[in-house]
């Protein structure tokens, strides 16, 4: 047995309703009138066949928002601003975002210091990923081993299979919700995975970044217009700055490493004073201690031509 189950659309809806009964607000993908996908409260009428990636990394935002207050002065001491206590069940998370979530879990709770707000929100988040049937614009998730199905970062992952769904669980909570449904043979799950992979172009492996390659970082740096989109849209970017909040508090906000101010030391000197330096810093992170899930959002949002698409197309950047 594969540990996977077979569900009809009705069964899936029942799983979502069970989550609602447990106090979760269920978010499902809905398209607004301008063709943008948003996670909206409520159960979907059916699976949106043309559903592609959310333009914005909503799953990351659910655990690590763009900005949030940390503390403020109050009375006899400092008042801690906690994360809101809200249970969210995200139905239709993309595999790349689930993989990214697994990375941010490690980053925020599995290293030197844990971030209590991230942890609190993460505990309240139930992720149902949906394997993809078509690549998103400018994505390369297969090469990044984050698609078309996720290996980690989800509670339940569903695969479209004929008119039915195969569902696998990665957590106890997920297994519990799927327990009532019929088992699926391992070969069937593997076959469905292979079919999905067949719908995607065959990838090359991701490159390793070589630091201080002046030709490449110079080329990219000249085409980076410092909009910051690649950071705000990236599901694995985690850097933030702490700054003033109101009159007497501190908040944090996500901080693009492509900005000169990010690298400026007190007194004015900079460790990475030029755009090529900062390109080097970003890609050293993405292909090094950080992570890239190949979702393609940075390339879509980039106002210049310096995001992953540009990086990977640059002659000499293809891995051997």
């Amino acid at each position, binding site marked *: 047995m594969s540990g996977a189950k077979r569900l009809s659309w009705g069964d899936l809806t029942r799983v979502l309703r069970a989550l609602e009964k447990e106090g979760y607000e269920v978010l499902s993908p809905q398209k607004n009138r301008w063709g943008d996908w948003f996670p909206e409260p409520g159960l979907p009428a059916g699976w949106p066949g043309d559903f592609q990636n959310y333009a914005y990394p909503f799953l990351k935002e659910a655990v690590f928002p763009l900005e949030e207050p940390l*503390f403020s002065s109050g009375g006899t001491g*400092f008042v801690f601003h906690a994360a809101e206590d809200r249970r969210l069940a995200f139905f239709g998370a993309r595999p790349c975002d689930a993989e990214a979530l697994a990375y941010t879990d490690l980053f925020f709770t599995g290293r030197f210091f844990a971030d209590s707000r991230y942890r609190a929100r993460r505990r309240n988040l139930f992720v149902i990923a949906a394997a993809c049937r078509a690549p998103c614009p400018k994505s390369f998730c297969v090469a990044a081993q984050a698609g078309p199905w996720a290996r980690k970062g989800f509670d339940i992952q569903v695969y479209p299979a004929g008119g039915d769904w195969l569902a696998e669980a990665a957590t106890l909570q997920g297994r519990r919700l799927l327990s009532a449904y019929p088992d699926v043979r391992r070969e069937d799950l593997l076959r469905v995975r292979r079919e999905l992979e067949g719908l995607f172009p065959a990838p090359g492996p991701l490159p390793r970044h070589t630091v201080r390659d002046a030709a490449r970082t110079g080329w990219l740096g000249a085409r980076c217009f410092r909009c910051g989109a690649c950071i705000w849209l990236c599901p694995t970017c985690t850097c933030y700055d702490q700054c003033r909040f109101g009159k007497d508090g501190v908040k944090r906000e996500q901080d693009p490493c492509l900005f000169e101010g990010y690298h400026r030391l007190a007194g004015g000197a900079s460790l990475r004073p030029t755009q090529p330096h900062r390109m080097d810093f970003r890609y050293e992170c993405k292909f090094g201690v950080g992570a890239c899930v190949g979702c393609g959002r940075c390339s879509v949002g980039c106002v210049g031509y310096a995001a992953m698409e540009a990086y990977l197309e640059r002659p000499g950047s293809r891995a051997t």
Partner: protein
Amino acid sequence: MSGRGHELPESSKIIRIRDEGPGIRSFDLTFSGWEEVRPGQMVKLYAPGHWEFPVSVSGVDEGAITLTLARVGVATTAMFGLSEGATVGLRGPFGRPWPTQLLWGRKVLVVAGGVGLAPTRLLLRELAGPGLTLLYGARSPSLLLFRDEYGELVDRGVDLRLTVDAGDATWKGHVGVVTTLLDRDLVRTRDHAVVAGPPVMMHFATRALVEMGMPPERIFVTLENHMKCGVGLCGHCRIGDRYVCTDGPVFSLAEVFALQERSAGNLW
């Protein structure tokens, strides 16, 4: 350390303020974590109405710590506007401290420049004795920090040598940047070196030490000016795959060279 401890500052009162020199001031602050502080570590100081920034601890006493600040920007300027009795925020201590156990009983050469004496002050106290040589330089005589403590250090056997970049009417000592106090004999007869100061000074001092024969793995530096959140999460102090605030701020020069080669950007 996890949970609220590293995420919420505690209220700290300014007990005493001392002017150490033009634009440099020491603040004695109440702090419940005073016993945990090791030499070279830092705390995060919240300047009310502004933000938090990491500062190395320059002194420890019963129930309190001392922070020595140079007025270089908005937050430090705000601190200079505060009086005794005012409330600030503190949390910590954070960071990898000087390797005191390794340096214990050995012949140690401390090279400090300007405000760099502050992060070494606790170390000097712990190691004070005949094996310790302190080379300390500042831009001018008025910028030499903690002058009233030199006597005690010398009494305990510390070989103290001072210099200034530019003297004044009363200065009768050595004139020249602190690297001019270095010579081959001095360096070769020492087991370890500790370097702290402004980036430019650290660059030249470490270079001189290596040239004069001190192996990089025996030289220790502090990269404290890179840090922002102090807990390895905000990303600003990352060099290559290391985070200065949690893997450092103290590093051996050998670690630093290895990092420099394989990381993006400048180091100092």
